[in-house]
């Protein structure tokens, strides 16, 4: 909250009135799918935060073996059944949300600021050498398929969650650079930017206080939609064994472990898979809603 106030004082965020928020919420709530997305995301976040308190067997999230209860089908005691070590799948799925969300949040926090700043600079200095340098480097990263680059990095370094996050971050920033570049380079020709230049405003002011506020809507939309993509990518890395390592209850790791027991012991695989699908659906619907709000504001 303090940070938001600070940004408003600096002029990066526009000062808002209660009615603006009401308007935005009205626009957002017009679409039931957006609201559903918001509900899904909120529920998942709350479950992840409160995981130790809401799960039936919190100790099953760590190293735990109970072969007596291994591979139990879903029952009242174990709603999602148990896995090959006798651990409660529901517990592990809810803890799995934690890792997925931490991964998404960390990567997007790491990636967004440099991506956006580079995009602003390149867009503002369009057709100068600095634009060429930044955008060609971005192109190189974009040209390599994300999973392939992440695989390469994770297999060279020690495979763990941290390295997986670094690998994904490394190839994710150019998308923000490109998004902001496109907007900044066209906004740059707008008369209101020319007006600021005639006045003699600094380049810093023009980039961060004139151009950036006009990009925030698109950036926020992309962050929301990207959360889903980052979770998919993170899960994919874990699935091939290059992300979080057992016994961490990562949804991707759980998928790959369970796959060996398909189709008889289906619940070890199906429930984590559904969990991934639900998070992704939630972020996508939410992202669409966010986009609607900002698209409405733009007109």
């Amino acid at each position: 909250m303090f940070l938001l106030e600070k940004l408003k004082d600096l002029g990066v965020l526009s000062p808002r009135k209660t009615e603006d928020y009401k308007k935005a919420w009205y626009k957002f709530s017009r679409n039931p799918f957006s609201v559903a997305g918001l509900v899904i995301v909120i529920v998942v976040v709350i479950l992840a935060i409160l995981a130790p308190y809401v799960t039936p067997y919190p100790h099953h999230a760590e190293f735990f073996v109970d072969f007596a209860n291994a591979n139990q089908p879903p029952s009242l005691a174990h709603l999602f059944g148990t896995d090959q070590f006798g651990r409660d799948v529901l517990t592990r799925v809810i803890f799995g949300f934690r890792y997925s969300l931490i991964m998404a949040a960390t990567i997007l926090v790491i990636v967004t600021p440099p991506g956006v700043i580079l995009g602003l600079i390149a867009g503002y200095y369009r057709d100068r050498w600095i634009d060429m340098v930044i955008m060609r480097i971005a192109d190189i990263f974009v040209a390599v398929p994300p999973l392939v680059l992440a695989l390469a990095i994770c297999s060279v370094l020690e495979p763990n969650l941290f390295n997986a996050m670094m690998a994904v971050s490394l190839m994710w920033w150019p998308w923000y650079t490109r998004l902001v570049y496109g907007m900044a380079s066209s906004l740059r020709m707008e008369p209101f930017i020319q007006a600021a230049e005639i006045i003699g405003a600094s380049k810093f002011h023009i980039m961060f206080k004139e151009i950036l506020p006009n990009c925030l809507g698109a950036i926020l939309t992309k962050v929301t939609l990207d959360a889903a993509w980052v979770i998919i990518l993170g899960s994919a890395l874990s699935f091939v064994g290059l992300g979080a390592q057992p016994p961490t209850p990562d949804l991707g790791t759980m998928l790959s472990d369970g796959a060996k027991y398909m189709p008889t012991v289906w619940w070890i695989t199906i429930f984590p898979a559904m969990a991934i699908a639900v998070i992704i659906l939630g972020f996508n619907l939410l992202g669409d809603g966010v986009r609607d709000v900002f698209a409405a504001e733009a007109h």
Partner: protein
Amino acid sequence: MPSENILEVINLKKYFKVSKGVIKAVDDISFTVKYGETFGLVGESGSGKSTTGHVVVGLYAPTSGKILYEGIDMSMGVERRPLNLKKKIQMVFQDPATSLNPKRTIKQIIELPLKVHGISHGDASQKVAELLQMVELPVEYMDRYPTELGGGERQMVAIARALAVNPSFIILDEPTSALDVSIQAKIINMLMRFQKEFDLSYLFITHNLSLMRNVASRVAIMYLGKIAELAPTEEFFYNPLHPYTKMLLSSIPVITDEEEAMKPKKVISTGEIPGALNVPPGCSFHPRCPERLEICDKVDPCMLEISPGHFVRCHLYNSMKV
């Protein structure tokens, strides 16, 4: 003796390189603006009048030629002009919907020039309120966004922003063409009042000849990047020399016979301004000219001073040179 000119533009050229060739948006024009006057620049779309304004204010650096402001060379882009000179020349854009940042409040917009030029530090509310009152807008507008204002009100905000730094020279780039007719007169009257009040000199760019007649003291007419005729307003409207001026003046729609009598003999307007990439050889106006001579498609005419202060660039007057 101090010069009577606040602005001198000498042989100004602005060419744009595009993939298909070179666009000569402004091609060797010269004019001066005197202290306290409104110098009008008219022309059809694509004649280069707006580009001229943009070069003078520094949004584009000129390809060649000089811009002298009070005798100081300003022939560079705005980012290389010294800060204390930047505030002397301000600009009001055509469409206030795009010249005001939709994400910034009116206060933030008007405050910017005050802060950049150190006119007020810290809270500038007081000064912003004064400026809003000056353009006859309610002080409560401070916290609003441009999108919450009407078109005329936005243009007044843009004018307030231009006046915030006490400039001496303002470029008005079609300041009323994007507005409702009902608000145009109000804006023009306000601009004329401020001109007297603050000793401003205007470079007034418009395609509206009737408006020009009311506001400008001298008028230059541009065609394909060149000035075709430059004269004091009276002279320009009562004794136009260039066939292009005659053509445009005779195409002003009028209602009464009186007005009709004031217009030059009907010259049928033919054709449209050619593309800037294939400028006709010789005098660029010759394909549309009703009085063309043999020389016209071969030799580009020079600027001739026919009577004091009245310049025309046309072969018809070669023998009349003073």
